[in-house]
């Protein structure tokens, strides 16, 4: 099946205008909560600057920090694995599962495992994984992908969740109370936790100085899994490294405030050594990150701490839904990360933006997201992934606009046919005209007026 591009999928999403409004308002409310939380910290902008500088420093010494992290983590009794790509990551995880012949596996939220399509890989090997984050469990039961990296089920209404839970968890039909539904999920997932043999978690930060890693959740599901199972596998991209524990002071102040407006997540758990009798594995994944590190214009996308503030503020994301981005990480940050993973398949994403710049302003590590969107557009066009019609249109427009004579001629003709501005042709086939009127063409251009009145 051909994946719809962003514009097509977004148009589909917007057809249900009431739901689109709800989606927009709900995420805008999260943005407002973020603003309120940030306003409570007078040094907020300074914090962003520090966070950005720490990440810049880390990227400039990443190989050193990775090695020192590995050494410390190994000394701590953590088994460190390295995966060049998603396939190798999946193979490593599967191997650990197979070595122990384990069946009962729980997983807390990890966008990296989504990026690598771990669940699908393991299903092919006959292994099923239970996602334990409530939002992720909801979408897993519905056989959908998360639509938001922090709020995975934000595209769903409570009646959708109620229907799903009625089908799978035998809850009362039509009971849409979030409290009731969450309680049902708690009971359902508790059984999996108690019985779990292996837990997979993501990693929010990995500390080079101490060889430990930090996992942040509100639900407590990462901890419930990691502390019940005898084997814990944590998966991280190479960019999760920070130099020292003290730097967490900066990042943990920013992360939850930027994400949901909370002062901090309920749990910020620091894992340094496996508990007695436990095996702890850590898989460090490249999957295109070293390539991105080499792209001067795009490397600082690797500073991302996955707070999703750019999703919540993005007027396009709010009105098109996460699935329209057809990738594990949607939203503005996804649109600058995904072309690095597959430029052709994700050529539409950098264009799914008005370049309004709000994303860069909320970013807690000051990634110049909207400027990178602009730059990716250039790279994608140069690589030949622009539609032919667009290319021809642009060449025509450039020819007219490069020549005053042609411009003035087209202008005269154009104000009735409006040809030179291709988005303004007055007919039913033109996307401009579908839901918008054209400006009324004036009798004369400013240039013509000026000629008569000033020269």
């Amino acid at each position, binding site marked *: 099946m051909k994946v719809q591009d962003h514009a097509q999928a977004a148009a589909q999403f917007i057809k249900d205008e009431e739901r689109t409004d709800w989606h927009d308002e709900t995420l805008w*409310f*999260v943005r407002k909560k973020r603003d309120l939380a940030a306003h409570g*910290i*007078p*040094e907020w902008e300074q914090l962003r600057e*520090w966070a950005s*500088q720490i990440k810049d*420093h880390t*990227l*400039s010494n990443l*190989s050193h920090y*990775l*090695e020192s992290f590995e050494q410390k983590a190994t000394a701590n009794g953590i088994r460190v694995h*390295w*995966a*060049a790509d998603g396939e190798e990551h999946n193979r490593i995880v599967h191997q650990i599962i197979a070595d122990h012949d384990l069946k009962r596996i729980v997983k807390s939220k990890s966008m990296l495992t989504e990026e690598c399509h771990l669940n699908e890989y393991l299903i092919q090997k006959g292994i099923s994984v239970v996602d*334990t984050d*409530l*939002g992720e469990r909801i979408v897993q039961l519905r056989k959908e992908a998360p639509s938001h990296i922090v*709020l*995975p089920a934000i595209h*769903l209404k409570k009646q959708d969740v109620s229907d799903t839970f009625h089908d799978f968890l035998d809850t009362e039909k039509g009971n849409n109370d979030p409290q009731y539904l*969450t309680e049902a999920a*708690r009971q359902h997932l508790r059984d999996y*936790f108690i019985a779990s043999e292996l837990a997979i978690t993501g990693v929010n930060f990995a500390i080079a100085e*101490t*060889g*430990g890693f930090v996992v942040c959740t*509100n*639900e*407590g599901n990462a*901890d*419930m899994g*990691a*502390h*019940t199972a005898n084997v814990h596998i944590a998966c991280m991209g*190479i960019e999760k490294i920070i130099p020292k524990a*003290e730097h*967490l*002071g*900066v990042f943990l*102040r920013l992360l939850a405030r930027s994400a949901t407006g909370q*002062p*901090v*997540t*309920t*749990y*910020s*758990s*620091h*894992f*340094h*050594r496996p*508990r*007695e009798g436990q095996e702890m594995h850590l898989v*460090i994944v*490249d999957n295109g990150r*070293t390539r991105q*590190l080499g792209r001067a214009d795009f*490397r600082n996308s690797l500073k991302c701490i996955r707070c999703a503030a750019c999703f919540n503020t993005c007027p396009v994301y709010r009105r098109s839904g996460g699935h329209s981005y057809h990738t594990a990480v949607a939203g503005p940050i996804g649109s600058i990360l995904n072309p690095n993973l597959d430029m052709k398949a994700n050529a539409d994403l950098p264009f799914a933006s008005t370049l309004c710049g709000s994303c860069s302003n909320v970013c807690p590590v000051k990634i110049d997201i909207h400027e990178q969107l602009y730059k990716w557009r250039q790279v994608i066009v140069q690589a030949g992934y622009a539609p032919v019609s667009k290319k021809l249109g642009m060449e025509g427009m450039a020819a007219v606009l490069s020549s005053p004579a042609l411009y003035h001629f087209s202008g005269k003709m154009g104000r009735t046919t409006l040809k030179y501005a291709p988005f303004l042709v007055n007919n039913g086939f033109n996307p401009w005209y579908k839901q918008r009127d054209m400006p009324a063409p004036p009798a004369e251009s400013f240039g013509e007026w000026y000629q008569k009145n000033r020269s």
Partner: protein
Amino acid sequence: MNSRDRILQATAENQPAQRDLPVIDFERLIRYDEPAVVFEQVLTKIGGQLVRVKNLEEVKNRFGEEDQEKFCVDVIDCTEEDRLKIKAWKATDLALLHTLYIKGSFGVAENSAVWVDELAMVNRLLPFICEHLFIVLEEKEIVPTMHHAYQKTDVNRTGFGSFIAGPSKTADIEQSLVIGAHGPRSLTIYLIEKDSL
């Protein structure tokens, strides 16, 4: 070359020129006249509650008043023998853990997080699997911000430690806040007042 070496080599080749670490100037940080008051305000907002107590004795008495029909555990100053027993408990043993009393090392005013490490937990699962969590905290151990918090402890002193801020929660269904996701349904901080020490 294996993946490890390839990744490290590619990283070394592609990483940009040296950028310096910033100096975190503590003079720039928010100050609170009364950190404990802020701590309580924030805690209340995120669904926790604070009870001021005079001393540990009072906490012990309160533990004695908990419903003894339920599975209640107090890991504050427990004996070595108890520690060994508690440590050995598995998830199946703890499935019905109702109440847990535990000691927090220090708290953070700006977000009401409390640092609890493995030494205090005895068993890592306890503070996450219990239904109701009670953390004892000394008022004098409240610092203003997370920057100060990381100066208070070496995070790798024990194999595991967590900042715990409020009861577990989720808003994954229509952004409606529900307290009691997978972890505790309630969190109470017993704050041992400064003056009473």
